[in-house]
C-alpha cells in the first residue's frame, strides 16, 4: 500500500492548486455572504456575480509595488511571509479527503502525506507558521507592527494550548494520531461531534482565535492597530500573509471536518465531495460568526482563553479518558 513518489508529487501539485483556488473563492464567498448579511450586494462588478473579483484582486496585488520601510531588516522581512504561506500550505498536506484509491494498479493516498503523526504535524507546522507572523512584524521596525506582533504572539500561543487539548478527546476515542485512521473509526462508529461535543465547541472557539478571525481578531484590529503585524507590508508580500491566513482557516476547517464530522464519510458515497461540502459549511459558519459578533477586549480574550477554554478542554480530555477506561 505504498504510493510511488511521482504520484505523490502530482497529488501535491493538484491539492496545492485546489487549496489556492478554494482560498481565492473563499474571499469572494466571504465578501458576498458578509455583504448579503449586511443588506449589501458584495462584489458584483467583475464578471457575473463578481466571480472574477479574486482574479482582479490577484492581478492588482501582483502589479502593485511592494516597498519596504527603510529601517526594516531586509532578510527576515522578505522571508517572513514566505514562511507563513509555506507552513500553511504544508499543514494541509496531512488532511485526508478520501479513503485512498487504486488507479491503474497503483495506490493513490487519500491525503498528500499519509503520516502516522498527522495531528501532531499539523500543530507543529502551525506553530512554525506563527514565527512568520512574529518575525514579519518585528522586522518591519514599526510601532503598529510590534504591537500587532505582541498581540499575535500572546493570543496564538495561549489559544494553541486549548486547541491541542480539545482534540485530545478525539485522539483517545480514535486511538490514533493518524487522521485517516481517525476518519475510518468515525465511519465505523459515529462522527465524534456527538460524543465530543464539548471538544468540538472548544476546538471551534480556539480555532477562531488561532486563525485570528472575528471576534478574536485583535492582532489586526483595524481601529487600533491599522493592520497588526502586516502594517508595513504591501503588494504580493501582504498578499502572501493574507493567503497564509486564509489557508490556515481552510486547514483548520478541514481538520475540524476530519476530527469531528467524519471527513469524507456520508450517505451516497460521494467521497471527497462530502469532505469539500463539509469544509464549505464550516467555512460559512466562520464567516457567519464574523458578521455577527463584535471584537473582544484584550483582557476578556486572555481571561476567556486561560480561565474558561483551557479548564474546559482539560476536563473534557480527562473525562473522555476515564470513560474510555471505564467502558
Amino acid at each position, binding site marked *: 500500500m505504498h504510493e510511488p513518489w511521482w504520484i505523490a508529487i502530482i497529488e501535491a501539485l493538484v491539492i496545492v492548486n485546489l487549496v489556492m483556488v478554494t482560498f481565492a473563492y473563499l474571499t469572494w464567498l466571504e465578501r458576498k*455572504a458578509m*455583504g*448579503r*448579511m*449586511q*443588506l449589501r450586494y458584495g462584489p458584483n462588478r467583475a464578471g457575473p456575480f463578481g466571480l472574477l473579483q479574486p482574479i482582479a484582486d490577484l492581478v492588482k496585488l501582483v502589479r502593485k509595488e511592494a516597498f519596504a520601510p527603510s529601517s526594516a531588516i531586509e532578510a527576515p522581512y522578505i522571508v517572513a511571509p514566505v514562511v507563513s504561506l509555506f507552513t500553511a500550505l504544508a499543514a494541509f498536506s496531512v488532511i485526508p479527503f478520501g479513503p485512498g484509491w487504486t488507479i491503474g494498479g497503483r495506490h493513490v493516498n487519500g491525503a498528500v502525506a499519509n503520516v502516522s503523526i498527522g495531528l501532531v504535524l499539523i500543530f507543529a507546522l502551525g506553530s512554525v507558521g506563527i514565527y512568520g507572523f512574529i518575525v514579519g512584524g518585528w522586522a518591519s521596525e514599526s510601532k503598529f507592527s510590534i504591537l500587532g506582533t505582541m498581540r499575535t504572539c500572546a493570543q496564538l500561543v495561549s489559544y494553541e494550548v486549548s486547541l491541542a487539548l480539545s482534540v485530545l478527546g478525539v485522539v483517545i476515542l480514535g486511538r490514533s494520531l493518524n487522521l485517516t485512521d481517525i476518519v475510518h473509526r468515525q465511519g465505523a462508529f459515529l462522527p465524534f461531534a456527538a460524543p465530543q461535543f464539548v471538544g468540538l465547541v472548544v476546538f471551534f472557539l480556539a480555532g477562531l482565535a488561532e486563525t485570528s478571525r472575528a471576534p478574536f481578531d485583535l492582532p489586526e484590529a483595524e481601529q487600533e492597530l491599522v493592520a497588526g503585524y502586516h502594517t508595513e507590508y504591501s503588494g504580493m508580500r501582504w498578499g502572501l500573509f493574507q493567503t497564509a491566513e486564509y489557508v490556515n482557516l481552510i486547514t483548520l476547517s478541514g481538520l475540524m471536518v476530519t476530527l469531528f464530522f467524519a471527513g469524507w464519510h456520508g450517505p451516497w458515497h460521494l467521497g471527497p465531495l462530502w469532505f469539500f461540502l463539509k469544509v464549505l459549511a464550516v467555512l460559512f459558519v466562520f464567516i*457567519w460568526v464574523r458578521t*455577527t*459578533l463584535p471584537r473582544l477586549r484584550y483582557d476578556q480574550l486572555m481571561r476567556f482563553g486561560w480561565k474558561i477554554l483551557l479548564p474546559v478542554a482539560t476536563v473534557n480530555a480527562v473525562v473522555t479518558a476515564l470513560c474510555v477506561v471505564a467502558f
Partner: protein
Amino acid sequence: MPSTPQPITTLKGFSVTFKQIFKKPITQQYPEYKRPVYPRFRGRHRLWRHENGLEKCVGCSLCAAACPADCIRVVAAENTPDNRVSAGERYARIYEINLSRCIFCGYCELACPFDAITLGNEFEISEYNRDDQIYTKDMLLAEPIKQVPVADPDLYDTPIPFYKSHS
C-alpha cells in the same frame, strides 16, 4: 424587565444575521441608478446669459475675491459698441474655474451682484487629466454635457424643515 441570558442573546444575533441573507439589499447601484440630487445641491458652476443673449457677468472679480480656495480667475475687458458681450460696462474676457481646487462652498454665487454665476447640480466631474479640470468661460456658459436627475423641488420646499417637525 427580566434580562435574557447572554448565550441566548448571542444566538438571537446569529438568527438576525442569517435572516438578512434573504432580504433584498438596499444598495443603490450607482452608475445604473442615479439618485436624484436635492434642488439646492451645489455641483459644478454655470455662467448665465440674459434673454437677449448678452452675458450677465460684468467681470467685476467679486467672485474671485470671495473664493476661499482661490480657484477663480477673471480677466476683464471693456465692452465696445461693435463688440458688446455683456450688459455692463466691462465683460469677462477670461473666466476660468479650477474645479480641482474648488470646494463647492457657493460663496461665488453669493458674491455675484448680477446672478451671473450659480452652482449647478452636476457632480460627475472627474477627469483623467488635471488640466481638464480647468473650466473655461465657453464650457461654463454651455449646457452641461452630463445631466444629473434632480428631485422635485416641492419635495423639499417646506417652511419648516422635516427634522424639526418630526422631533
